[in-house]
């Protein structure tokens, strides 16, 4: 059972909320103003922060799957 994080780059508006909430999971590519997933399969210890990033994304661009 692992986590899988993806960002919909069409939806992403570069709010940077995700990288502020979970800086080890998300970064931002400033040249295009879009999020970058640094850690697409984060450990269970990061679940809470990633879930908070999903809730806190103003453009609802982040998806988290458990599998």
């Amino acid at each position, binding site marked *: 059972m692992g986590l899988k994080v993806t960002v919909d780059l069409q939806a992403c*508006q*570069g709010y*940077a909320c995700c990288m*502020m909430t979970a800086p080890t999971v998300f*970064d931002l590519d400033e040249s295009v103003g879009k999020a970058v997933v640094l850690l697409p399969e984060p450990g269970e210890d990061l679940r809470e922060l990633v879930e908070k990033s999903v*809730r806190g994304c103003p453009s609802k661009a982040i998806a988290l799957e458990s599998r």
Partner: protein
Amino acid sequence: MHHVVVGASLAGINAVEGLRDAGFDGELTLVGAEDTLPYERPPLSKAALRLGSAAETILLRPADWYADHAVDLRLGRTAVKLDLANRSVILAGGGEVSYDGLILATGSSARPLATPAGAGPAHVLRTADDCARLHARLRPGEHLVIIGAGFIGLEVAATATMMGLDVSVVEVAPGPLHRVLGAEVGRWFERHHAAHGIGMHCGVGIEAIEADGRRSKVRLLDGTVLAADVLVAGVGARPAVEWLRGSGLQLSDGVACDPFLRTSAPDVVAAGDIARWHNTLFDEDLRVEQWTNAVEQGRYAAESLLGIAEQSYAAVPYFWSDQFDAKMRFVGVANAAQDVHVAEAGPDVLVALFGRDGLLRGALCVNAPRKLAGYRQAIADRVAWSDVVTP
């Protein structure tokens, strides 16, 4: 056990979700004054205004989410009174809802601007209905006059300009966003809007608004007369707490809360625009009318009501505003800043820092989002102003 959330708002939805995620399995009622499913407000001054609201209104949660979370959704029901002694919320048109625990999340309402008879109303922008009404009045080539150069006013100005209107903005303060962000940042935004062809009239008051056939005439104190086909008032918002007056609940420019968002009444907490609470990080009472705050406080208020909040609510606020190609993001607080330092300024970029009492308290980044993370951490760590701003 029956918990009630008043306000089918962003804070209200997150409170509901927070209660269920935390395992609360009792009765749950969500009361909302508008008769539509809860929706996102930020697009109302941007994409939804440009394209027409119906197609672009974004629901906060899909329609079946409410049944899935066993929420008794009461839409189109305005809460008009809180009866603390009987633990009940009285609704307009009769009826009441009893609660064991209550979360107040009624948000803000737009401050209206009175216009004389015949001059037509000054549109405000707060709800999807407001957005639809204004969209229908925005016709290319016509002249839109916006009173107030705050975030709503500037966003509407940008959107209407992109729709082909001729736009003027009137602001009594010396510059846009002046009260919140100070003179230098204000000047940057003034130039940004002027460069897109918007007539910026700052530092000048309004002498009169007069009816003029189908138009309105806005007379400024410097002698300028603006003939408006459409008038928009972006003169601020106020916390929607009128219904709580006389209930005995302690109010103080919003609902007075402790650091755990608990109000003066037992088992009553507040979240979002209406909550004035003591933020221990900034060591001051804050009331924050922002999207991210509504999400996080809604969830936190649920935990606080359930008695499982471990720490006081002391988040670093965050908000954004998009105007033309300027993507402004702000972390922290700017209120009552003693120090403002512009770290970077160009035609498309602006980075400004806000400090008080020797500490960094806020950072504004236009088209420079990557810097936010570092500043946010520095604010949370109470880093000294002199460590981020070298003379």
